[in-house]
C-alpha cells in the first residue's frame, strides 16, 4: 500500500479530492473560518508607459503568505498564482468593453534537494530559483517592462482603464486542502483589482 502511494501520486490526489469535497461540505455547513491569520496580497504600485508604440506595464504586488499556506509550501504543496491583466475601454452609458485580457499563471513550489523556492512562469516556461520565500514572492508579484498591448489598439479620443489583479488558484490545490482553502481566511488570497487610467 505504501509503495503504491509513492508510485502513483494521482491516486493520492483522487482520495484527497473526495476527502476535501466532503470536508468542505461539512466545514461550510458548520463553521465559517478556521484560521484567524490572514494573508496579505495587494498591489503597491502599477503603471503603464508608452515606448515605441507599445504600452509596457510595471507593477509590484506585496505578497505575504499566512502560516498555513507557507507551511503547506515547504511540505511539498505547490501553489498556483494567477495574474489577471485587462484593459477596458470606458463607456459612459454602458458597461466598459474589454480590449485586452490576459491571465499569467505562476507555479511556486519548494525544491528540497537544493533548498530553493522555484517560480515557474507557466506562460513563458521560465523557471527562477530563490533561496528565500520572500525573494520568490517578490519576483512573483513583480512585472517589469511587460509588453501590454500596441498603441494601435488604443483610440486617441477614447478613454481606457488598465487593471491588474493577482490571486491564488485554489482549484489546483491538493484535494484535502481544497476544503480548508474554501473556508479558511489564511487561504483567501486574492488582491483587490488595481486600476489606473491607461491614457
Amino acid at each position, binding site marked *: 500500500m505504501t509503495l503504491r502511494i509513492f508510485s502513483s501520486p494521482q491516486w493520492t490526489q483522487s482520495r484527497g479530492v473526495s476527502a*476535501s469535497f466532503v470536508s468542505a461540505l461539512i466545514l461550510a455547513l458548520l463553521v465559517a473560518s478556521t484560521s484567524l491569520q490572514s494573508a496579505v496580497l495587494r498591489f503597491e504600485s502599477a503603471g503603464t508607459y508608452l515606448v515605441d508604440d507599445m504600452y509596457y506595464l510595471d507593477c509590484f504586488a506585496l505578497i505575504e503568505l499566512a502560516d498555513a499556506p507557507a507551511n503547506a509550501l515547504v511540505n511539498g504543496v505547490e501553489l498556483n498564482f494567477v495574474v489577471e491583466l485587462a484593459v477596458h475601454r470606458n463607456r459612459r452609458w454602458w458597461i466598459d468593453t474589454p480590449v485586452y485580457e490576459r491571465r499569467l499563471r505562476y507555479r511556486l513550489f519548494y525544491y*528540497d534537494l537544493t533548498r530553493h523556492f522555484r517560480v515557474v512562469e507557466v506562460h513563458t516556461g521560465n*523557471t527562477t530559483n530563490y533561496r528565500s520565500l520572500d525573494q520568490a514572492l517578490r519576483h512573483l508579484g513583480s512585472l517589469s517592462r511587460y509588453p501590454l498591448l500596441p498603441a494601435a489598439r488604443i483610440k486617441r479620443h477614447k478613454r481606457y482603464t488598465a487593471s491588474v489583479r493577482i490571486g491564488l488558484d485554489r482549484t489546483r490545490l491538493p484535494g484535502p486542502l481544497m476544503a480548508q482553502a474554501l473556508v479558511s481566511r489564511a487561504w483567501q488570497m486574492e488582491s483587490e483589482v488595481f486600476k489606473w487610467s491607461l491614457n
Partner: protein
Amino acid sequence: MVAKLVRRLANSLLLMGLLFVFLIITLYFVANTGEHLDHFGQLYQTLMFGTVVALVIIGLLILVSVWRLISDVRNNVSGSRLTLKLVIVFVAMALLPMALVYSFSVRFLNSNIESWFDVEVERALDDALGLSRDSLNVYMRIRQKTTLELSNRLADVPAELAVLVLNELGSDSEASELTLIGADNRVIASTAFLDTVTVAPSRPADDIIARARGGSAYLSTDPSNDGELQVRSVVPVFSSDPLEGVSVLYATYPIASSSSELAANVQQSFRNYRQLAYLREPLKQSSVATLTLAMFLCLMMAVWVAFYAARRLMVPVHNLVDGTRMVATGDYTSRLSSSGSDELGDLVDSFNAMTDQLERARASAASSQEQAERQRAYLELVLSRISSGVITLDQQHRIRTCNIGAATILQAGDEGLEALDCSDYRQMEESRTQQFFAAIDPLLKTDRAEWSTELELSGESSITPLICRGASMRDEQRGYTGHVLVFDDISDVVEAQRNAAWSEVARRLAHEIKNPLTPIQLSAERLQRKYAGKLHGDDAVTLQKLTGTIVTQVGAMKSMVKAFAEYANAPSMEFRRTSLNELISEISYLYLEGDEQNCITLELAEDIPAIAGDANRIRQVLHNVIKNAFEAASDIPRTSRRLTIATALVHTDNGEQIEMRFQDNGPGFPQDLLDRLFEPYVTTKKKGTGIGLAIVKKIIEEHGGSVRASNPPEGGGLVALWIPVLPNYATLHGDAA
C-alpha cells in the same frame, strides 16, 4: 397552494429519486475522478453548492413529512398513528446496522491511513535526500575549484582577448557556459558550450555579482528550465593592477543526466511523501466526513423511504377508515379502489361488497318509503278531490287529519281543523264546526264500531243537511286508536228528493184536478145556456153570475193545472249554441209595448261567450223572471217601475260562467222566504201559483247553472242566474252543443 405543492414534492418518488441519484453520482464522481483533477477542481465549488442545495431540499422535504405526520397524529387523522409506528420501525431498522457499519468503518479508515506512514520509509527518504545533497556538494566543490583556476588564468587577460581565452579555457573545463563580467558590470566576454544556444548571455543576479567582487564566491546547484540540474559558480577575477576593478567570472556546469534524473526522482518521492504526511490529518478528517455524509445520505434515504413506504402501505387502511366513516354517516356510494391481491386487497373488496349490499338495502327501503309516500300523496289527493268530508281523530278525539271537503262543509276558517279537540267543541268559534262536533260527540263516546247519523247545520241564511258516518279504528297491539268520520252535504239530495216529490204532487194534481174541470166547465156553460132564457129578473142575473164564476174559476184552475203540468213534465231540451245577450234583447223587446214600456234597462256586457242551451227554455226563464219582477212591483205606479238586466262574464270555482242579474225596484223578497223562494208553491203574490221561479231554477240547473235571490242594500229584489259558458257544456253533459 404552496403547502400542497410542498406536500406533493415531499411525496414525489421521481423528485426524491432524482435528488438521491444526484447525490450518489456526485459522491461516486468525487471518489473516482482523480484523473481529471484540473477539471474537477473547477467544478468543485459548483458540485459542492449543488450538493448543499440538494441536501437542504431533501432535509426540508423530510421535515415537512415529519411535521405533517405529527400534525396528523395530533389531529387524529386516520392511519397516522400506524404510519408513525411504521416510520419509527423502518428508521430504527436502518439506523442500527448503519451505526455499526459507520463505527467500524471510521476505525478502519483511521488505522488504514495511519498504516500508510512508516518511520523507516521516512528515514530512508531523508537519507536518500541527504545522500543526493552530499553527492551534489562534492561535485560543486570540484567545479568551484575549476572556476577559481579559470579566474586566476583570466586575471591579467586584456578585455579584447578575453573571448579567445574564455573559449580556450572553457573547452578544457567541461563548463557549459562562461561569462566574464567586467568591473563596470558589463559582460566582457561570454562563451557557450555543449550545444547550448542562447540569444543573450545569462548573468547572475546583481547582488551575487556584488558579493563576488567583495570576495565572497557564490556556489549553488540549481534546476534549470528543462529540469536538469546544473552547478552555478560565481568567483572574483582579481587583476595584478590594483587600479583596475575586480571582474567576475560566472560559470555553469551541467550535471550528468543519469545523476540529475536520480536526484529528481529522489526529490519527487520525498516531496510526495512530505505532502502526504502533511495532508494526513485533513485526509483522515475528510475520509470520516465522507463516510459521515454517506451515512447521513443513507439515513435520509431510509427516513424518506420509510415515509413513502408507510404511506403506500397505509393508503388502503386510510381508505378503509374513511370509507367506514362515510358509511357511518350514511353515504353508501363510496367505493374503495382495489389495492392489490394481498390481504388488504381482500379487505377492500369485502368492504366494497358490504357497501354494495348496504346501498341496495337502502335503495330498497327508500323505494318502499317513496312508494308509501306516493300512496299517501295519492290518498291525500283523492281525499282533497272528493266533496265528502273525511276527518280522522286520535285516541283523545283530537283531529289528526282532515281533507278540504271537511273544511268546506264545516266552513272552517283559515286556521282549519287541524289539532282541534272535538270533545272541547264548546270553545270552538266556527258555529258549523261547533254544531257538527256537538252532534257527534255523544256518538264518539259510545263503544259502537260503526254508526251513522243525519244532522242539520244552520247557517246565517241557510240550513245544510248532513249525513255523517263514523267508525272506530282499532289496532291489535294498541287497541283503540281513534275514529274516522265521513260526512256529506246532502242538500242536493234533499232538494232533489223534494223536487221529485213536488213533481209527483204536481203531476197528480194535474191529473186528478184536470179531469173533472172540463165537465164542470161544460156543465156550468150548459146550465147557462139552458136556464138563462127560462129565468128572469134577479134569478137570471144570479145564474149568469154563478155560472160565470164557475167558468172563470175553472179556467183559473186549468191555468194552474197547466202550470203544474209544465213543471212536472218538462219537455226534452235541445242544446244549441245560444247567445244570452240576443235572447235578453229579444225578450225585452216584447216589453217595449204595453204597461211596462220603458221600464227595462239593459246593461249587457260585450263579447260575452255563447252558452250551450235550449233557447225556448231560456226564453221561458227570462219571461218568468221578468214577469215575476213586474208582478212583485205591482204596487208601484207603472211609470215608476224599473228592471235592470245585466250580463257579465265571471270566473268562479266551477269555471267561467255568465252571470245574469235582474234587479227591480220593488219591495224585495221576504227575508224568511229567501231560502225557499225557488221551491214550488212558494209565493208572495195573491194570485201566484208559486211555480214560476221553481221552473226557472229547474231550467237553469238543467243547464248546469245556479240561481240565487237576494235583497240588495239599495232596495228592491235581485235574482241572479249563472250559466256556464260553452266549453263547460261538454264536460257537464258529455255532448257537444
